[in-house]
């Protein structure tokens, strides 16, 4: 679990060059913190906001791209999706797919 998490973080910050050895891994990569405000710190979802933790990586990306293209009905995800690059979406998919699917 922590190894997978670490991988997601390395992918997420691959843009920022070499990283020092880390004593503790951040819980959620910074890029995914934006999602936490509605979907929860671990993507657990709450109320009507869907759970995204444990979502299959390919499905996560395909869903995102459908939102980006306006091909999937949405209230706000169609406005959010175009704001992120493909590599950022890949980092988000890495992170959320590595989390447990069940609460």
């Amino acid at each position, binding site marked *: 679990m922590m190894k997978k998490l670490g991988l997601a973080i390395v992918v997420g910050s691959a*843009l920022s060059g070499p990283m020092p050895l880390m004593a503790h891994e951040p819980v959620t990569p910074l890029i995914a*913190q934006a999602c936490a*405000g509605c979907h929860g710190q671990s993507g657990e979802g709450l109320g009507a906001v869907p759970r995204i933790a444990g979502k299959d990586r390919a499905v996560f990306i395909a869903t995102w791209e459908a939102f980006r293209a306006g091909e999937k009905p949405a*209230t*706000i995800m169609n*406005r*959010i999706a175009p*704001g992120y690059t493909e590599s950022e979406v890949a980092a988000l998919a890495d992170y959320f797919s590595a989390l447990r699917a069940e609460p």
Partner: protein
Amino acid sequence: MTRLTRRSFATFLGASALTLAAPATLRAQTGPRLLVIGGGFGGASAARFARMAYPEVAVTLVEPWPTFITCPYGNLILGGKQTLPRITHSYDGLRARGVNVVQDRAIEIDADAKSVRLAGGAVLGYDKLILSPGIALQWGAIEGYDEAAAEVFPHAWMGGDGSQITNLRRQLEALPEGGVVGLAIPANPFRCPPGPYERISMIAHYLKQANPRAKILALDAKEGFSKQGLFQDGWAELYGDMIEWVPGNLDGRIVRVDTENRLFISEFGEEHRVDVGNVIPPQSAATIAIDAGLADETGWVPIDPRTFAARAASDIHVIGDATIAPPMPKSGYVANSTSKVAVAAALSELTGRAAPEDPVFFNTCYSHVGADYGISVVGVYRVTEDGIVETPDSGGISPRGPLSDLAEQRRLEAVYADGWYASITRDMFS
């Protein structure tokens, strides 16, 4: 900053002695010290994130109130859709995570000594400071509007002990049949740009049932406002002619209030008699930020947008409504989003972790216009050489159009707004 009172001199001596006597070993045992001032959307999010992501760091949170009452969803109390207990949050969840929550008011920052003095007399040292102090209301900026006047014409623009929003709700319940509710709304910038208009909506939602002949007179210092088209569509659809909004160029700016005669007086001298008055006065960064010399002549705090370090003090990261960070709004979500980048930037050196290089900030502001009627504005923000910019071709407001076409969109946005509230308060307090 250089004035040495007896107390701060003693602290200075104490701190020096400790530093001399206890080099790296003690530091390693106790870990770096992060001090967070303010337990709202910025500060609570920062403290929680710091404990989760940097467990080796000792986190102290200073907050004067024993519980936090959110401004978001406060308007729903006016609309009869929420109650005060349901928007009141305990700091016990943060305590359980190991945050040292100190209930006191921070009154003075000594950036040179890296310490903060509290009203109760204690002085807290820090390695890094996250300052999320919120706003100060500009008493007297509207002539006659001071703390005493706010008991008659509540502002209800700070959570505090909840008495302001409760006062306003009580007055609405006592409004004479067919009476006038007046709102005075400030120029930009101010806390929560769509807030006054959600408030108008929620007051109308209540009056439509309880007092349908009542009128809402919204007197605005501005010519336009956040999500204006969406709000005005909703007002026309749901509330007919109950709401009159007067922009600044039509003499909407209120410059004086007379609580005895219940008058709002405009720039050009027109007197509006109101049965219930809600004055949202002009604002600045909270006093502690101004006293510490962190604010500029506008009264707000300039920051480095990549780290949220104050331009005037690199070890103090300022987040939330007190900052100058356009085009991002002064919203709870922005405070939450930026808090994590600020913590990561503040702690990178102390913990040997990578600093965030290309931060992405995120905002969604939901507003409730009526029952089952939500609207939103979304923004994804990045830092360029021109400062903070909205990511092109993304974000923006909910679609406009006739309610018959968009009823499901509006209903879902109201439901998702509730989900947002539950999630973000969990991200602050659990």
